[in-house]
């Protein structure tokens, strides 16, 4: 994905990423260096690690900060087979960093295959899903050196490399040359994956602060080389061995309190370790961490700093500890008398301060080459070289010097920022097609997905496959996470936001917060050009995490953006941005994050500000259709296959689809096989009744509170607007039929028949192509959001817009959801005809319709009893497994229970079983099938007479009933049932509780 690679024709398996040797001419003085890294991951993961706009630059700069003259060269293989082939051919790799799964191979298999060669590089796993690191011992057994967890911080990549290098060099550098070392004792993958980048970052600052003035460049580099090493230890014995070996040079110890000692977990191992360290070396700072506050006293007793692991500001406290211990290196502006004027933390800070520092201070620093030196210490060598020859005497006035410095640094920063997503440039921004960034940092999950989507659409020329349709990511900008950090820090909001529980007060503070001036200028310039409605969408670091569906956790706002005065429009945009920021700290989001392995502090918010795709129609604005599509369809039934994907679309804005309202589902590869829309009654029950649009009237112009700008309209409005032509059909009660199109009189329905049956717009084909492309590039199933206008308008062609692209975490589970490992005796139910996917292990309630008491005469009574039990379980917030005879929701009492969806709405899993000579055919296509899909309900069909699975009726009958009514039994168990469903082969099991 280097920029000069030209347009590829297919996802290449191997390609160098980025480039090494940016700086040259300095000898590598360390013994072991990592020059070539083989990154084994999907194209998508590689993109995120290395090409997220400036991430590639950012990673590179981090490497350069450490090593100043050297950054490793990164190679990429998209499959395990490619990786092994490449490793054999090139034999040059010093390190292999692999995802836990790459399509065809697991990390341990790759490690074993590599270990068989000699010499072989160390293998490190960088997992994307916390569940992949559940068993580090197994990975270690395969010869894997380290296991890390990707948590959105690109600093992890340099940290991994440095950690591996430090370990290789420590004997020489520390043992022989006296370089200092920090011992980090931590066995929790997630924790050290967070810590290490922070600690390395602090070390870097520390070593820079150590660089005294007057050193020549090579000496300075030596100093940087001589930064402390980090020795990651997982057990007491490992740590003690290191301390014994390097004790004299140990700068400090950061240790967990509980870790393994003598092969068992020792709850106070850290305290004892600290005591022994103190005995030998009383001045070595020790920080002890624990998830138990009561350990604070233990830590104090041995003179160690205590850190509470669940502190919401953990990383900051680690930083503070290190800063206090090791010092820090801001650029401090001083007057000639040495008094401090101000400080600059980084390049941008330096640029900002340069505008305002007094001339005597400027002259003072310029004359002494402070700027250049400071920059070099930060390894900003290019600009340092540029500045160095400029003496104060070269300039007529100090102000000229000031402008020159500012311009040089500004230009340099812009170069640094240039990546796939260009920096926003007012002069060149194309309001109809541009996708730019404002501010540094990450683009966040959504921003990355859009950048990746934009890259894919462009690189693989999708538009050319659909002549006459404009296929693109809508124009817009992304506010990087750096802007978020600056707003929080400069307004002193961070700690308050993390701790606050008063949402109203917090909102007021965020709305009053000041946006940095440079960002304001850019936003204003953007609005000057962007004269269309805007969506202001959250794009947080964690939002693309495949295992965590953050959809709907953070806010999105829409702005009509029509006010003639750009200042008014800016004000509204700022308010929307403030509201999105604050939504990260709302009760809802905090509660959600608590249920994940992440901490709020690790989360950062970028913001996507994007054109709303659609057309103005009357005082409304909306697309013809919008929706969500997945490349994997867990509820596929023949002739559909799971890999054919599934799309849910609605007329108007996608709010309806995301909100679970009636919408239209189809498989892009089988657009005419419509399960939920086979009969007239199905269509009437399941089709869309109203649509969402953005208001362009006064309401849409007012403050963007709570989707205030959105309104719902009836289909009559869409018909008057002309929007129903592409998506509508007509119901005729007299004829008991639904006619395609809206040519005949009668109630209108949204069926998408003109598009899907009569091909007025190639929606299905485009979706199939985009899903296929994205899946191929991501190495696994993906989900996209999209919107489209199906007809040309004012000279503009029909448009298909990609609004979101994210991977779905299914690949891992396909491999592991092997339900064959259960013995039949341990099961309540086995089925080879299961729809749904995943594992459910928190359900303790089961409702069973007694097979012996089922009969058509009693089916209504049973249905009513079921409805009552469902309602009381729902009130108690207890999901349940439902097992019954025949089909649920059948209109024919002879075929099963005529329940309505709301009578079984609390079921997480539904089992329909045949009995004796009675065979069930799945309810697929019945009206509540839509609900099954919407709410991800597992769906089992069992026909024991035909050898298709079984239900252990005897076991069920033997369980004591927590409640029983009219032959419907409610069973509650102590330990949960375990339900596993494999959406690929449609196998599924329900296991009895383990102690049952």
């Amino acid at each position, binding site marked *: 994905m280097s920029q000069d690679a030209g347009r590829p024709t297919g996802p290449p398996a191997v390609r160098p990423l980025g480039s090494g040797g940016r700086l040259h001419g300095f000898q590598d003085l360390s013994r072991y260096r990592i020059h070539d890294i083989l990154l084994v991951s999907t194209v998508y993961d590689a993109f995120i690690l290395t090409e997220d706009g400036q991430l590639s630059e950012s990673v590179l700069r981090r490497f350069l900060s450490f090593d100043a003259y050297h950054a490793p060269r990164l190679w990429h293989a998209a499959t395990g087979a490619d990786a092994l082939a490449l490793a054999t051919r090139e034999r040059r790799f010093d390190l292999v960093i692999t995802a836990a799964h790459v399509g065809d191979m697991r990390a341990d298999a790759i490690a074993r295959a590599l270990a068989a060669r000699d010499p072989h590089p160390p293998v490190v796993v960088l997992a994307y899903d916390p569940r992949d690191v559940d068993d580090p011992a197994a990975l270690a057994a395969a010869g894997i050196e380290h296991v890390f967890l990707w948590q959105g911080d690109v600093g992890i990549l340099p940290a991994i490399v440095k950690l591996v290098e430090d370990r290789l060099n420590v004997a020489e550098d520390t043992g022989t040359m006296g370089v200092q070392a920090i011992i980090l004792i931590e066995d929790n993958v997630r924790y050290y994956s967070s810590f290490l980048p922070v600690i390395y970052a602090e070390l870097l600052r520390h070593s820079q602060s150590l660089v005294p003035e007057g050193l020549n460049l090579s000496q300075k580099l030596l100093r940087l080389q001589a930064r402390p090493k980090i020795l990651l230890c997982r057990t007491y014995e490992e740590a003690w061995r290191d301390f014994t070996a390097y004790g004299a040079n140990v700068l400090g110890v950061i240790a967990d309190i509980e870790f393994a000692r003598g092969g068992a977990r020792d709850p106070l191992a850290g305290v004892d370790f600290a005591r022994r360290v103190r005995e030998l070396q009383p001045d070595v700072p020790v920080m002890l961490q624990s998830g138990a506050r009561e350990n604070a006293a233990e830590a104090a007793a041995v003179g160690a700093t205590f850190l509470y692991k669940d502190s919401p500001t953990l990383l900051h406290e680690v930083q503070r500890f290190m800063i206090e211990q090791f010092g820090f290196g801001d650029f401090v502006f001083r007057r000639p008398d040495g008094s401090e004027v101000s400080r600059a933390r980084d390049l941008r800070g330096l640029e900002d301060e340069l505008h305002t520092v007094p001339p005597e201070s400027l002259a003072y620093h310029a004359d002494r080459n402070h700027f250049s030196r400071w920059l070099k210490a930060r390894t900003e060598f290019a600009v340092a070289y540029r500045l160095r020859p400029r003496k104060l005497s070269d300039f007529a006035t100090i102000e000229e010097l000031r402008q020159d410095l500012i311009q040089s640094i500004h230009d340099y920063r812009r170069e640094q920022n240039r990546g796939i997503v260009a920096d926003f440039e007012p002069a060149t921004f194309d309001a109809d097609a541009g996708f730019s960034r404002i501010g540094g940092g990450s683009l966040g999950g959504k921003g990355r997905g859009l950048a990746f989507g934009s890259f894919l659409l462009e690189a693989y020329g999708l538009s050319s496959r659909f002549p006459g349709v404009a296929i693109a990511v809508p124009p817009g900008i992304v506010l990087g996470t750096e802007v978020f950090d600056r707003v929080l820090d400069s307004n002193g909001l961070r700690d308050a936001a993390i701790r606050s529980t008063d949402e109203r007060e917090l909102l007021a503070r965020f709305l009053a917060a000041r946006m940095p001036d440079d960002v304001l200028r850019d936003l204003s310039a953007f609005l000057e050009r962007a004269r269309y409605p805007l969506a202001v969408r959250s794009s947080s670091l964690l939002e693309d995490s495949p295992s965590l569906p953050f959809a709907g956790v953070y806010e999105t706002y829409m702005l009509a953006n029509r006010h003639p005065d750009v200042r008014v429009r800016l004000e509204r945009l700022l308010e929307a941005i403030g509201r999105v920021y604050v939504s990260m700290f709302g009760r809802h989001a905090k509660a959600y994050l608590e249920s994940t392995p992440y901490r709020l502090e690790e989360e950062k918010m970028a913001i996507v500000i994007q054109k709303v795709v659609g057309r103005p129609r009357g005082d409304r604005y909306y697309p013809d259709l919008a929706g969500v599509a997945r490349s994997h369809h867990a509820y596929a*039934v023949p*002739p*559909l296959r799971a890999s054919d994907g599934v799309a849910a679309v609605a007329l108007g804005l996608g709010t309806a689809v995301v909100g679970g309202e009636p919408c239209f589902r189809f498989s892009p590869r*089988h657009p*005419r*096989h*419509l*399960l939920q829309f*086979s*009969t*007239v009654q*199905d269509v*009437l029950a399941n089709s869309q*009744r*109203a649509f969402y649009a953005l208001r362009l009237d006064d309401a849409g112009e007012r403050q963007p509170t709570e989707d205030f700008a959105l309104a719902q309209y*009836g*289909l*009559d409005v869409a018909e008057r607007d002309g929007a129903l032509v592409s998506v509508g059909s007509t*119901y*005729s*009660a*007299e*004829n*008991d*039929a*639904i006619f395609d199109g809206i040519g005949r009189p009668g*109630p*209108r329905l949204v069926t998408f028949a003109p598009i899907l*049956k009569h091909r007025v717009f190639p929606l299905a084909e485009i979706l199939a192509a985009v899903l296929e492309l994205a899946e191929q590039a991501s190495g696994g199933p993906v989900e996209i959001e999209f919107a489209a206008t199906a007809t040309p308008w004012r000279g503009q062609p029909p448009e298909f817009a990609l609004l979101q692209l994210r991977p779905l975490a299914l690949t891992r589970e396909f491999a592991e959801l092997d339900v064959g490992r259960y013995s039949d005796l341990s099961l309540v139910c086995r089925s080879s005809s299961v729809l749904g996917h995943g594992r459910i292990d928190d359900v303790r309630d089961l409702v069973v319709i007694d097979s012996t008491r089922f009969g*058509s005469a009693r089916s*209504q*009574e049973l249905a*009513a009893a079921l*409805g*009552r039990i*469902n*309602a*009381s379980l729902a009130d108690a917030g207890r999901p349940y497994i439902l097992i019954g005879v025949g089909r649920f929701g059948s*209109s*024919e*009492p*002879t*075929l099963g229970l*005529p329940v*309505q969806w*709301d*009578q079984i709405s609390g079921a997480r899993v539904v089992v329909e079983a045949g009995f004796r*000579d009675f065979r069930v*055919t799945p309810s*697929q*296509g019945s009206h509540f099938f839509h609900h099954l899909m919407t709410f991800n309900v597992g769906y089992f069909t069992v026909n024991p007479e035909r050898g298709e699975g079984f239900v252990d009726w005897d076991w069920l009958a033997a369980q004591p009933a927590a409640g029983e009514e009219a032959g419907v039994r409610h069973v509650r168990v102590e330990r949960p049932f375990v339900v596993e469903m494999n959406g690929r082969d449609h196998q599924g099991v329900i296991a009895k509780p383990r102690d049952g």
Partner: protein
Amino acid sequence: MPTLMTGTPGSAYVEEIIDLVRTKNPAEPEFHQAVEEVLESLAPVFDRRPEYRSARILERFVEPERVVIFRVPWQDDQGAVQVNRGYRVQMNSAIGPYKGGLRFHPSVTLGILKFLAFEQVLKNSLTTLAMGGGKGGSDFDPKGKSDAEVMRFCQSFMTELARHVGPDTDVPAGDIGVGGREIGYLFGQYKRLRNEFTGVLTGKGLNWGGSLIRPEATGYGSVYFAAEMLATRGETLEGKVCLVSGSGNVAQYTVEKLIQLGARPVTLSDSSGFIYDESGITREKLDFVFELKNVRRGRIKEYADRFSGVVYTPLDPKAGSNPLWSIPAQCAFPSATQNEINGVDAANLLRGGVYVVSEGANMPTTLDGVARFLDAGILYAPGKASNAGGVATSGLEMSQNNMRITWTREEVDQRLHQIMKAIHRNCAETAAEFGTPGNYVNGANIAGFLKVADAMMDQGLV
């Protein structure tokens, strides 16, 4: 009471036939169940009509006149060959051409179709029209099939079926899985094969042979039946407070006809709850309901938001009874779903003053509820009689096709009215004849059978 030739009661004859059916059709449990339920209600007939027994009417009655089972091969959109099984059970043509729906559903078996055909003979007879009974279909599942696949299947199905049906032989209609679209494809293929445009199917499109008043027929019919029941006591619907459940076609047109006849309908419901409009649902308010339910497809709750003085009560799924049936009134028209009136609801209705119940839905009252109505001696019309308006319009479609004329809405409505009157008279007279005057359940069960049985007697051993 005449003595029986064999000296055993009618119930013994019925038991004998039920055993015979079980023995001869071992794999058809649904058919057994239907025969058992129907014949048990007919037991008194054989005490009074010994001639049926000597002519072996029941033995003939439970044996289809003809069953056709055939292969239906078709090609799916992927080009793969699919094979389904097609059926037509021609049960009884004593009083007219076979008439009954086609069902496309994977659960279709011979046993189920025989069960449905058996019941259809009696339903059709009760309408007093000249329609025999039959049923057909296939194990084809239209769900998830494309239009093109459904069309190819229908064409293949009709290619064989065309040999066995015709406007004077057998006139199928729609059923589960067979709606306007399928009838269209089937009709087109029949016309092409036979080169004749005749009324071989009912449920046709309005502009190619279909009849008006189909959506209205069941609701209108149920009201006409109630009016006839009231007439036996010298009363009319004028000014009567009426409870109507449901808000679909049946409920909507029940309310429409009630308004036309001067009654005061006060309730409507859907799966979420019901509205109670004490001042009565007027024409204007009903127009709102038409728009709400048929065009916007919204919730009935909106009625209460729209009009003042209306109480909306959400459905409580945990409750054992429905408060709708506790509202004081004179008439009730359960038009929503099966078993919506249980024993408690029935008692509440009686307590609230209801003395006319006309069922628009299929079996809306549980057995317990029915028993309470019969005990109380109120005017209770079971669905098989009061909702026969739907079946009757199929007969009216046939008549119009045969005469090659199209009646106006008013003409069809007027004939529907006459049919409902005839059904009522038939039920009432039969109930009286069998010693249970005013018991429309007995009347409806027996009347349909008598007409067919007498026709079979008349036509000799065929």
